């Protein structure tokens, strides 16, 4: 009886306010969708950061025969003596975990495997590839210090900190995430105002009913619940659209770039994100309805 009555009231309210209801649904869907995308990017960034941070190396490139790097100009290729000395220097550094030597042939193989364009691969010979020490650090955060101390060493042409390359990639994803979250906050704000307005309109439309309910002694819950439910149901429908949006985003975007990522976005994460955005959406609708009712529905 009770549930029946309240649902019929909710249905009437939603139908009478159809345009506002649609506006609420769309706003909540977009807002929660963006919030979810932001959260998904965030989970990707942190899982990737964790994955890559462990693999990050310093690449210490060595001077070749006719190297164009200023550090090698006119000095010719690095000598075996210099190489051994450099290796010892690196190994003796407290922050260094391991040092591997990569010769020209290995470098050429990796270069080929990376699938760079065929023309370039055919022109470049193994002889032209640089030799390098691959330095693995105990603490990736110390990379800068190690890099500084190795920079001036004889025979070192150039040092590449992979961390910096990753950081710029992560930085880009971070910006994307912040943008998504920023827009999501705006949308949530808009949704709150819209829901407030919808509930106010609804309360005004049904002031006759609520007046009579008050007179015959309906409890506050009974009077307010249909309005709150209206907001919550609109929020839920918006949340369902947001969930669809998130699933589509995972399939069309995250799964497409998965090949470049070590840790693909799992369905578990997506489910978690969807649950969270749903809860956020519904709670926002609930609060907005309550606050508005306090102002416009005297009980």
């Amino acid at each position, binding site marked *: 009886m009770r549930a029946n009555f309240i649902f019929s009231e909710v249905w009437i309210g939603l139908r009478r306010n159809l345009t506002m209801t649609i506006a609420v649904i769309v706003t909540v869907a977009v807002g929660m969708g963006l919030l979810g995308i932001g959260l998904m990017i965030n989970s990707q960034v942190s899982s990737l950061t964790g994955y890559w941070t462990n693999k990050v190396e310093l690449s210490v490139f060595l001077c070749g025969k006719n190297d164009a790097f200023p550090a090698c100009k006119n000095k010719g290729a690095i000598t075996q003596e210099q190489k051994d000395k450099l290796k010892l220097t690196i190994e003796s550094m407290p922050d260094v975990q391991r040092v591997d030597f990569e010769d020209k042939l290995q470098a050429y193989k990796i270069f080929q495997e990376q699938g760079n364009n065929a023309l370039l691969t055919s022109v470049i010979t193994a002889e032209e590839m640089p030799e390098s020490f691959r330095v693995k650090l105990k603490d990736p955060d110390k990379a800068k210090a190690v890099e500084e101390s190795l920079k001036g060493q004889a025979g070192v042409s150039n040092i590449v900190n992979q961390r910096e390359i990753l950081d710029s990639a992560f930085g880009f994803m971070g910006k994307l995430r912040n943008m998504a979250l920023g827009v999501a906050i705006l949308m949530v704000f808009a949704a709150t105002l819209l829901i407030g307005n919808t509930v106010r309109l609804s309360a005004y439309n049904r002031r006759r009913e609520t007046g009579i309910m008050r007179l*015959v002694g309906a409890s506050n819950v*009974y009077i307010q619940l249909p309005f709150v439910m209206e907001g919550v149901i609109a929020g839920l429908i918006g949340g369902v659209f947001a969930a669809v949006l998130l699933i589509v985003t995972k399939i069309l975007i995250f799964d497409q770039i998965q090949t470049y990522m070590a840790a693909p976005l799992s369905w578990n994460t997506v489910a978690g994100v969807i649950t969270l955005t749903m809860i956020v959406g519904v709670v926002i609708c609930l609060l907005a309805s309550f606050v508005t009712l306090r102002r416009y529905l005297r009980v």
Partner: protein
Amino acid sequence: MIHFDNVTKVYANQNRPALDHVSVDVDKGEFVFLVGPSGSGKSTFLRLVLKEERPNSGAIHVAGKDLAKLSNFKVPHLRRRIGCVFQDFRLLPKKNVYENVAFALEVIGKPRRFIRKVVPEVIELVGLEGKAHRMPEELSGGEQQRVAMARAFVNRPMILLADEPTGNIDPATSIGIMKVLDRINRTGTTVLMATHDAAIVDSMRKRVVELEDGKIVRDQSRGVYGQAY
């Protein structure tokens, strides 16, 4: 049943009190007319009984409850024991007679079986048998007021408040309305009716409380309307 003790009500932004040190006792089962010119405080009196307004001073007891001590949470329970009828009927235009009466029970969570049983009884009591499925717009003013009375009475309240119930109805039809109110009164329900209608007050010969400028100027059992003029 209704007990006003030295009650004063001053509305915000008004200097003159709407009710000025009013003390009245209405016993269980009484029928009381509240008369007086517009603005004399009749409606304020009724609103105070419903706890729609709070007095500035004085104590009000309704159905044995001290309204000042009644928490907002419990006000709906007080209102369930008080039925209300108004000059403008206040029916829901999109619901038929049966639904309008049933609405009052639905919103206080009564079971459907109970509603099916009592609503037809009350519709019959107010003399609308056979019209349960009419819409309010298909009914005359008098019939609409009967629907409103059925709605007010369907939960068997201890008190029925009527604010100018015959104000929009021609004198011939008003007699029918008064008969229904009398019938309700005979079931033991206390009836408090605010009115301008001298003919009705004179014909009923019930207790009359007259208000003027918020003060009680007359309280007479078996009174008539006109004496003070």
